[in-house]
């Protein structure tokens, strides 16, 4: 890989251990993927910001780098943490979880990261523009930034995102190159997609078939909402490793499906009708018992519009005494919810806000074991997909109105 004089200098150790280690990581990745050189990046979204995702080894690595006093070159936002910094006791996290997480978050902050732990940084001010090269982690956010915004990122893991924040560079390969952004697989949607979770079902179904290939969708309404696209991308990235999708007449990089394929034929054409929608939805519901222990809305983190809808459904209602209703969002979105009066309605009904974290990145497996929690209802295909493996909870999956009804009745019917 070609390195500039400055990069050679960074790699030599003359600019300190953290810069050297970062360049080592970026050069190693660049060589694996035959990158010809690096390109500058000024925007990073950092995965591995939770102690659950970083593990002891990853946390120690980040803290060791931070201890050198290095500062981030790139504007850097953080993925969810393992705790809600205000309500962690109420949710069931331990003193040890809180201590370890605060230490890790502080390490990131000391290097210059913005302390708003969220998987939807595009709702809270990190909004790359079309064709901008960035280095983002968080599979759902990667698919959003590549597809909906048209910016360019590879699937960055924690160490490479950290290296890019410090070095202000990323190797030029993969989704940074025009030729890797074309459509590969055509998906013709004929099913009527109504709720956000229908888009999750679509993403879950297609992700499993197309693995990492870029899908191109036709038949999706042009008034599809930002939350629906968020759910589609999150599910595509969970069941497959999709980092980029195109939607005819919706996403900014293409004007038509034909243009997305650059005059090549699709490798495969899938039909997504009523039957496929039903199949995908049933596949995501694994729980046997009708009793619900946890209901979670907000994977990826809720927008203010989704919180408004939850508040509407919970007006003058009470969450069943056996159920924990978790509403996950960014802390800055919750501030807005406070101002709008939604928080009061949700908390009065017995719902619990989980800010800066989520069941996937919090130590929910430990909480479930300790408190005997077995089942979870959610409107998120991503969370339903990971619930057993990551949280040891059996998922029920359906639209948010159904999830809220289950929270009130204590049963999934």
């Amino acid at each position, binding site marked *: 890989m070609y390195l500039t004089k400055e990069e050679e200098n960074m790699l030599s150790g003359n600019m300190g251990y953290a810069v050297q280690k970062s360049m080592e990581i970026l050069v190693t990745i660049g060589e694996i993927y035959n990158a010809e050189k690096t390109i500058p990046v000024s925007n990073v979204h950092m995965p591995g910001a939770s102690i659950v995702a970083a593990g002891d080894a*990853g946390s120690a690595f980040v803290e060791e780098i931070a201890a050198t006093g290095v500062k981030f070159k790139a504007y850097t936002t953080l993925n969810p943490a393992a705790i809600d910094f205000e309500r962690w006791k109420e949710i069931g996290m331990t003193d040890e979880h809180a201590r370890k997480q605060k230490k890790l978050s502080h390490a990131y902050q000391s290097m210059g990261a913005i302390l708003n732990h969220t998987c939807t940084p595009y709702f809270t001010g990190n909004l790359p523009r079309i064709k901008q090269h960035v280095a983002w982690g968080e599979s759902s956010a990667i698919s959003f930034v590549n597809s909906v915004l048209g910016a360019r990122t590879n699937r960055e893991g924690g160490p490479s995102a950290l290296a890019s924040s410090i070095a202000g560079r990323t190797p030029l390969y993969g989704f940074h190159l025009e030729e890797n952004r074309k459509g590969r697989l055509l998906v013709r949607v004929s099913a009527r997609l109504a709720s956000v979770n229908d888009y999750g079902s679509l993403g879950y179904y297609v992700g499993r078939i197309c693995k990492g290939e870029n899908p191109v969708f036709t038949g999706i309404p042009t008034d599809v909402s930002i939350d629906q696209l968020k759910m589609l991308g999150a599910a595509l990235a969970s069941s497959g490793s999709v980092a980029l999708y195109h939607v005819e007449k919706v996403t900014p990089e293409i004007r038509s499906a034909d243009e997305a394929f650059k005059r090549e034929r699709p490798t495969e054409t899938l039909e997504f009708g009523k039957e496929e929608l039903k199949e995908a939805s049933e596949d995501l519901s694994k729980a046997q018992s009708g009793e619900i222990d946890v209901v979670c809305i907000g994977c990826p983190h809720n927008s203010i519009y989704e919180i408004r809808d939850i508040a509407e459904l919970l007006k003058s209602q009470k969450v069943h005494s056996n159920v924990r209703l978790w509403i996950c969002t960014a802390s800055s979105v919750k501030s807005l919810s406070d101002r709008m009066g939604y928080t009061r309605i949700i908390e009065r009904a017995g719902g619990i806000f989980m800010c800066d974290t989520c069941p996937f990145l919090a130590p929910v497996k430990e909480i479930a074991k300790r408190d005997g929690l077995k089942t979870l209802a959610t409107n998120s295909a991503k969370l339903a997909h990971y619930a057993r493996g990551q949280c040891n909870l059996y998922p029920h999956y359906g639209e948010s109105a159904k999830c809220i009804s289950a929270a009130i009745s204590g049963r999934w019917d």
Partner: protein
Amino acid sequence: MPEIVLKGHRVVKGKAEGEAIVTRDSISFMGGVDPKNGIITESGAELEGKTISGKILVFHSGKGSTGGSYMLYDMAKRGTGPKGIINIRTDSVVAIGAVMGNIATVDQLEKNPLEVIRTGDYVIIDGDAGIVRIRKT
């Protein structure tokens, strides 16, 4: 015992040998594997309930969570990770985790490793040369 030698592409240097465990699935090392014991936890996965710890793990590619890089590194540090990795194509999240954890990794072999290698075969990875040797059992 006949030995099959396949040439491929070096992802992470180093040498590793051991018993192979093979799946056609892609793997998310965050949310799909328990880092404490290396057991695959993804619901419905071909290897659900089986351990990858100390094995030569042969799988399609990485998928899902970008937390997978630190999780693979964490497993390598704990001694619960795979000894070596063979992929059709190694995705960036797995590659970065394998680099950090010094797990010898090879991809793009001249023949499909998911067809040539069976679970239980003895496999030797030479990451430096990008070569895999397979002893059928």
